[in-house]
């Protein structure tokens, strides 16, 4: 098993955290992982992304040129990474923020109105968790329970009261992905 994925969006949308939770989940399940962020003077907005590899074998290059999965939370990210998705790969995109979805036909495209759902859940910040849930549903790289355990590891102790909300968001994402696929 080897999954190479990029999470991309605006700085502040929590794409780095998505990658991190997935990495922890991979670790918990005994897999090899590598999480590679873009970095820069991101203090001032702009875009951010992380490339994550989850694999049974040791990860060689942390730099990827093509991805099994692309997760895009805004238009520039989609535009930038659509081309780099492998043929037959999965593209998960946030359909509230992104007006122009993917144009490729050789891929599985899953648009998720996560921003809208997050507002409905009274917390725009859980957008990323919804999308992460959707991703899990689409690719099933780790077990859902493992993802929850990983979330707990990544979330600082003082925010643990937010766990249920975030878990709910992930579940929502699973649901939305199922709907989108069918």
């Amino acid at each position: 098993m080897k999954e190479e994925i990029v999470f991309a969006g605006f700085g502040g949308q929590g794409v780095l955290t998505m990658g991190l939770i997935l990495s922890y989940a991979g670790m918990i399940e005994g897999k090899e992982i590598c999480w590679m962020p873009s970095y820069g003077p991101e203090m001032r907005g702009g875009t951010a992304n992380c490339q994550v590899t989850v694999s049974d074998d040791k990860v060689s290059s942390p730099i990827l040129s093509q991805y099994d999965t692309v997760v895009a939370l805004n238009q520039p990210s989609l535009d930038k990474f659509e081309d780099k998705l492998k043929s037959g790969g999965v593209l998960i995109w946030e359909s509230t923020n992104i007006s122009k979805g993917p144009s490729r036909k050789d891929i599985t495209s899953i648009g998720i109105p996560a921003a809208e759902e997050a507002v409905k859940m009274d917390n725009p910040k859980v957008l990323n968790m919804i999308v992460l849930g959707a991703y899990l549903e689409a690719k099933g790289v780790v077990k859902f329970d493992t993802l929850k355990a990983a979330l707990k590891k990544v979330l600082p102790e003082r925010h643990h009261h937010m766990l249920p909300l975030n878990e709910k968001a992930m579940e929502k994402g699973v649901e939305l992905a199922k709907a989108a696929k069918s």
Partner: protein
Amino acid sequence: MKEGYELIYERPKSLIKVHNHYCPGCTHGVVHKLLAEVIDELGIENETIGVAPVGCAVLAYDYIDVDWQEAAHGRAQALATGIKRMHPDKYVFTYQGDGDLAAIGTAETVHAANRGENILVVFINNAIYGMTGGQMAPTTLEGQKTSTSPYGRVIDDMGAPVKIADMLALLPKTYYITRQTVADVKGVRAAKKALKKAFEYQKAGKGYCLVEFVANCPSNWKMTPIQSFEWTKENMFPYYPLGDVKTPEE
């Protein structure tokens, strides 16, 4: 413009019309604007050379429409010395943060001041290393939390917040040293006057002028811009009191 109305304020010409990279509500933006206004008003845009620091203002040269040089971290005043000595008839200013000017650049600052270099130093004291993501600066206040003083600055261990302006005022060849703010309208007006005065002094060959701004860094202070200015007033002003530190004996 509506009939019967007159223009009261517009974006200064020397402020290049591009998006800047500063965070919302950051002092850097206001001070850039003031500099551009003063340069416009004095009509010196063709005779001015700016020296940008390494710090959040590293790209200042993208925003103010004069010739610039980008210095190494802390060395802006050494560059400015080199430039001014070659072009004594040009206006030369540096634009520096607290880390740049008062930590790594301490020697260059003290000695440019001591030589009375005929330059203007614009000093943005936001009590933090903005660009690198919020580490402790020499001017960080006692107890202030930063990423390298996560439990608050402890003076006995990390030293006291440095009032560099006061130290420089001791040097016989410094001419005009003043501490300003842009945290409110009154401050902005006063600050602009101070900057203008400093350029005029430079024209008259008076020597070293330093305008310090008691500034903010909403992002790394983890506050809204409005909160950040409130914090400035409550915490920074008592330690870094506004006003002239050294004025010319005229």
